[in-house]
C-alpha cells in the first residue's frame, strides 16, 4: 500500500468522524454540555548546555502563548469529548472522543513534541603513533576525525496521530459482532548527525548533518464475536516504515599506505571503496503484515484459549524477508474456590533470509591475489522457540495466598554459530510467590525465582588470539599473512548471559496510622556463568526502595520516595599484542 493511499484513508477516516459528529450534534436535544477555555503563556530561560536538561523542550528563549480547550457534550444517544492544548509550535496535543449509544465509539488524537539531540564531538577519536616514545617522535599512522557541520543543532519533532473506531453489530438478541479499526501515524522531522567510518580500518571518521523525514503507519482491523461461552476473533495488522530523505553520500578517502601515501594499487586492491563518493547509512523501507486468529472455549472447570499468529516483515529495498509462525495455548482451570491452575504452551518458528555478501576479489591482479571472499551471512534470528509453564495458585484465606510456577523454554538457532550448527539454549525456571498479612496494618509480599540455563547465548572463539607469526591457511603463491587470516588463530568464548540466576523480591506495605501508608522493598538478582573457557561471568543487581503517602485531609497531602540501584558486573579486557 502506498503512502498516498494511506494518507487518503486517514483523511477519509477523520472526515467521517467529523461528519458523524456534526450530524450527531444536530440531532441533540437539551444535551449536557460544558466548555472550558485556557489561555496564557510561558517564557523559557536557558543556561549553558540546555539540550540534556531540556531534552524534550523546544529550547528557545522566546515567550510563547499557550491555549487550550475542553468540550463535553452528552445526551441519551451518545457523547462527544474534545480536549486540546497548545504549548509551543512543536509541542501540542488534541483528542476527540465520541460514542453513540453502545454501538459506535471512537477517537482521534494528535500529539507532537520536539527532541533535542546532542552532537558527538568526536574528540575522543584523535590518536597518532609515535615511532620513538622517548623522543615523542610522531609517526604516520593516525586516527583523525572531521565534522562537516560543527555548528549544527540536531533534533527532530515527533508527530503522532492515532485514530480508532469500534462498531458493535447485533447478530441476534444475545450475540454481537464487534468490528474494530485502528490507525497510527508517526512522523519524525528534523536533522541528525551521521558518521561515516572509512580507510582500511576506522582511521578517518567523517560527520555530516542529514535531514530526518521518517514515517511509520500502522493499521489494524479486528473482528471479535462471542457465542455463549465460545469466543472467536480474527485480526490483521499492517505496518509500513519509510524515510523520505536523500541517501547521504561521503567521499571515501583514497586508499594508500598510511605513512608514505604510496602503494596505491596494493592498498586499493584490499578495500571495497576508495577515492569515490559512496552512499552510506541508507534507511530501509520496511513492510510488515500479521494475521491473528484467536479462540476461547470452555473446558471442564475452566477454559482453553488458543491463538495463531503468522507474520512477515520485508525490507522492500533489498527484498530480504523474515517470516514468523507461532501458536499459543492457555488452559485456565479452577479446581476449587481456593485452587487455580494456569498452564501456557508457546511455539514459534522464525525464518530470516540469508544474505550473500558480494566482495570484490582480494588483491585482484596482484601476485598471490585474486581470492574470492564472497560468503553467505546466515541469521541468528532463524530459530525455533518452544516454551511452556504451569502456575498453581492457592488462596489460603481472604488475605493470604501462595503460588508456585515452573517453566521451560528452548531456543534452537539453526545457523549459529555457523550454517546448520543448531545451537540450542534451554532454560528451566521455578518461582515461589506469596502474600502474607502480618497484621491488620501490614502485608508482606515475597517472590523467589530460580533459573537454570543450559548453553546461554555465547560468542564463540572470538575473544583471544593465539601466539604465532603466521596463519593456518596460507594463500597460494603468497607468503605474506593478512589480518583476515588471523581469524583462524582466535579462540576463547565470551558471554554476558547467565547460566544460573537467582532473583529475590521482598516488599512490605505498612499503615501505622489512618493517614499514613508506607511501602518498602528490596530486589536482589545474582547472575552467574561458570561455563565459559575464559572467565567466570557474574552480575549482581540490588534495588531497595522506600515510599510514603501522608494524606493530611482536604487541605494538604505529602508523598515521596526514594530508590537505589547498584549493579556490578565483570567483563573481559583483551588486547592482541602484535607488530602491525
Amino acid at each position, binding site marked *: 500500500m502506498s503512502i498516498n493511499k494511506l494518507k487518503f484513508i486517514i483523511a477519509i477516516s477523520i472526515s467521517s468522524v467529523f461528519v458523524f459528529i456534526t450530524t450527531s450534534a444536530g440531532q441533540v436535544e437539551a444535551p449536557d454540555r460544558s466548555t472550558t477555555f485556557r489561555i496564557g503563556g*510561558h517564557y523559557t530561560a536557558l543556561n549553558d*548546555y540546555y*539540550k540534556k536538561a531540556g531534552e524534550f523542550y523546544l529550547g528557545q528563549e522566546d515567550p510563547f502563548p499557550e491555549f487550550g480547550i475542553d468540550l463535553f457534550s452528552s445526551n441519551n444517544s451518545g457523547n462527544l469529548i474534545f480536549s486540546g492544548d497548545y504549548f509551543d509550535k512543536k509541542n501540542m496535543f488534541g483528542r476527540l472522543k465520541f460514542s453513540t449509544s453502545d454501538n459506535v465509539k471512537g477517537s482521534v488524537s494528535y500529539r507532537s513534541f520536539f527532541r533535542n539531540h546532542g552532537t558527538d564531538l568526536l574528540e575522543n577519536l584523535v590518536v597518532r603513533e609515535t615511532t620513538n616514545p622517548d623522543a615523542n617522535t610522531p609517526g604516520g599512522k593516525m586516527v583523525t576525525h572531521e565534522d562537516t557541520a560543527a555548528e549544527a543543532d540536531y533534533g527532530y519533532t515527533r508527530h503522532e496521530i492515532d485514530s480508532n473506531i469500534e462498531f458493535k453489530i447485533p447478530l441476534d438478541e444475545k450475540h454481537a459482532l464487534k468490528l474494530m479499526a485502528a490507525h497510527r501515524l508517526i512522523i519524525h522531522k528534523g536533522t541528525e548527525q551521521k558518521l561515516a567510518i572509512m580507510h582500511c580500518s576506522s582511521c578517518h571518521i567523517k560527520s555530516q548533518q542529514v535531514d530526518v523525514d521518517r514515517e511509520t503507519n500502522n493499521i489494524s482491523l479486528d473482528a471479535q464475536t462471542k457465542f455463549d461461552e465460545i469466543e472467536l476473533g480474527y485480526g490483521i495488522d499492517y505496518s509500513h516504515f519509510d524515510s523520505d530523505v536523500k541517501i547521504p553520500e561521503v567521499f571515501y578517502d583514497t586508499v594508500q599506505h598510511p605513512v608514505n601515501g604510496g602503494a596505491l594499487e596494493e592498498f586499493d586492491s584490499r578495500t571495497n571503496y576508495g577515492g569515490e563518493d559512496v552512499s552510506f547509512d541508507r534507511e530501509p523501507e520496511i513492510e510488515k503484515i500479521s494475521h491473528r486468529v484467536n479462540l476461547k472455549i470452555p473446558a471442564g472447570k475452566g477454559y482453553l484459549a488458543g491463538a495463531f499468529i503468522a507474520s512477515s516483515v520485508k525490507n522492500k529495498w533489498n527484498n530480504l524477508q523474515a517470516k514468523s509462525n507461532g501458536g499459543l495455548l492457555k488452559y485456565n482451570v479452577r479446581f476449587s474456590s481456593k485452587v487455580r491452575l494456569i498452564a501456557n504452551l508457546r511455539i514459534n518458528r522464525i525464518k530470516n533470509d540469508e544474505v550473500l555478501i558480494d566482495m570484490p576479489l582480494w588483491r585482484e591482479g596482484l601476485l598471490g591475489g585474486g581470492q574470492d571472499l564472497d560468503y553467505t551471512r546466515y541469521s541468528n534470528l532463524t530459530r525455533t522457540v518452544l516454551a511452556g509453564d504451569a502456575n498453581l495458585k492457592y488462596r489460603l484465606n481472604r488475605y493470604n495466598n501462595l503460588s508456585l510456577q515452573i517453566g521451560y523454554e528452548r531456543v534452537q538457532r539453526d545457523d549459529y554459530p555457523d550454517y546448520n550448527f543448531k545451537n540450542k539454549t534451554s532454560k528451566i525456571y521455578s518461582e515461589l510467590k506469596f502474600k502474607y498479612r502480618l497484621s491488620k496494618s501490614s502485608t508482606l509480599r515475597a517472590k523467589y525465582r530460580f533459573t537454570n540455563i543450559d548453553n546461554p547465548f555465547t560468542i564463540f572463539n572470538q575473544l583471544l588470539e593465539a601466539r604465532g607469526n603466521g*596463519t593456518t591457511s596460507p594463500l597460494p603463491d603468497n607468503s605474506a*599473512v593478512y589480518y583476515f587470516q588471523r581469524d583462524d588463530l582466535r579462540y576463547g568464548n565470551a558471554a554476558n548471559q547467565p547460566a544460573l540466576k537467582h532473583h529475590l523480591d521482598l516488599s512490605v506495605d505498612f499503615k501505622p496510622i489512618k493517614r499514613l501508608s508506607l511501602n518498602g522493598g528490596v530486589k536482589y538478582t545474582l547472575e552467574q556463568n561458570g561455563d565459559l573457557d575464559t572467565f567466570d561471568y557474574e552480575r549482581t543487581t540490588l534495588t531497595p526502595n522506600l515510599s510514603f503517602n501522608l494524606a493530611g485531609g482536604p*487541605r*494538604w497531602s505529602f508523598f515521596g520516595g526514594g530508590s537505589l540501584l547498584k549493579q556490578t558486573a565483570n567483563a573481559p*579486557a583483551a588486547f592482541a599484542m602484535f607488530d602491525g
Partner: protein
Amino acid sequence: MANATVGGPKHYGSLYTTTKYTTDVKIINGSFMIVPANKLAVTISGNYSISEADFDPVEMPELSDSLQQVIDEEIAANNYDYSQMHAYSDLSYKRLDGSFKLNYKFSDRLNWSGEVIYLKFTDDNGYVYGNETGSLYIIRSGLEFSL
C-alpha cells in the same frame, strides 16, 4: 587453539584480564500539596537523581620473563599502558526536575494558575557529547474559564 604454520607479522597472543563495571543510581522524589486559603492551592514537587558508572582499573597479569623480553625488544613502541583505560567510560550525572505551582480560584468558573519549572543537569565527567551541564527554567501563567 590453532598453530600458525608460516611466517608473517609478529604476533604475541592476547594480553587478557577481567575488570568490574559498576552502575550506581540514587533517586528521591516527592510532592507536597497544600491549600493555605480557601481559594489558593500550592503544589511543590521534585525529582533528584545521581547516576554514576565506572570500571575498576585494568590490571594485566605479569608476562613470562621470556615473552616480556621479546615484546620489549620487538614491539615496545606499542607502549601497552592500561593505567587510564578504566576512566574512559566514567559517567557521573545529577539531574533535578522541580516545580512550584500556584492555583487561585476566583470563582467556580474562573481559575488562575502560575508555575515555575526548573530543570538542571550536571555532567561531572563529560562524554562524547562534551560537558552537558546546563539548566533551564520555565515560567508559566494562565487563566482557565468555564462556560
